[in-house]
């Protein structure tokens, strides 16, 4: 099950994790985000060397603004507390896995 991030646990999760952290920035009105929902959930069970998380940009606007999110879905990978990759748009599970693996 992917972890839901909020302003309260964001920094702690990103900074204190010894594994890379993947964040799915999504919004409830966004069709492509809903398409990606089940895919991200599956990644959470299939990739145990990454922490899979999601953040609702409507509820957590400040966090989204901090990272200058201008489009949903946008995905970011953090390593050692720093962003190492960012990409946007719906894609297949295989394409997403490949993209995440590039940062691992």
């Amino acid at each position: 099950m992917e972890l839901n991030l909020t302003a309260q646990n964001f920094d702690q999760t990103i900074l204190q994790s010894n594994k890379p952290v993947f964040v799915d920035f999504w919004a409830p009105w966004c069709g492509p985000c809903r398409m990606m929902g089940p895919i991200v959930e599956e990644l959470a069970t299939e990739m145990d060397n990454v922490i899979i998380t999601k953040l609702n940009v409507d509820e957590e606007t400040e966090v989204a603004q901090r990272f200058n999110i201008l489009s949903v879905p946008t995905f970011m990978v953090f390593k050692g507390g720093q962003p190492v990759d960012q990409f946007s748009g719906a894609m297949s599970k295989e394409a997403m896995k490949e993209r995440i693996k590039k940062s691992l």
Partner: protein
Amino acid sequence: MAIRPYIYINMETQKIIIIGAGPAGYTAAIYAARAELNPVLFSGPQPGGQLMWTTVVENFPGFPDGVYGSELMEERMKKQAEKFGTKIIAENITAVDLSVRPFKLTTSSGQQIETQTLVIATGASAIWMNVQGEEQYKGKGVSVCATCDGFFFKGKEVAVVGGGDAAMEEALDLAKFASKVSVLVRSDKLKASKVMQERAEAEAKINFVWNVSVKEVLGDGNKVTGLKVLNSQTNEESELKFDGVFPAIGHKPNTEIFKGQVELDERSFLIKKNCTSETSVSGVFAAGDVADPRYRQAITSAGSGCMAAMDAERWLKGIGDRG
């Protein structure tokens, strides 16, 4: 939520496989399932199709108060297809071999599946402008989903590139958030329907820039700052300031994996014979936007999906259970 592994129902040859999960694909599935053909549908990279990108669909018959695109696709059409027994597999088809019988399909997880008949309902994808800066700023100010991303441009100035219904819809959606929406049109008139033109013209925040083509997307390294455009009448280039750019210039059919195996027209649309869904390959049928450069409506796609399933059923009866 239980995660279902992608185990195929059985490895025997299927009677019918449908590639695509838009109105054409799901309607074909409903009809094929009710004809007891046990259809398998591959939903591909955009399950639900282009309607997932819209808000309210007002012109699909049967919904006088309109219906949300995602509701129509996920909560209605998909459910209906599943109700009658369609097996929906959330993978892409990455390759096909239509030179053999039964036809062979390769999936994105590397599995092979065979089928006697095939319905191609892969639809069409948004065309990008293909100018410098566009790729760099995708997701950072360049977007093809106004309904998804309008939110991020509250009080900002944005551009919609295009002159058809899609461009008008995007402009109207964006006007809910942006302070100014400029519609950049290549010629001196719109291709959009009368209704949509009138609505866009009546919206105070929307203005039109005529006879321009986009030459480059400009940015500051982090996000979009504007567009370089060329005026075809004056031959002058100028830079216009925008915080967001929304290309809405059209769609191209998703026929890459069928090139060289099924006859395509000069714009890569699948060619259908006479008024049927038959393609140049016997047993392969086409439905929806992938074979329709003219109408491209949800209802015409749904109708053609029905036709494809009925043609496939007829084909199967004609040859019995051969292959």
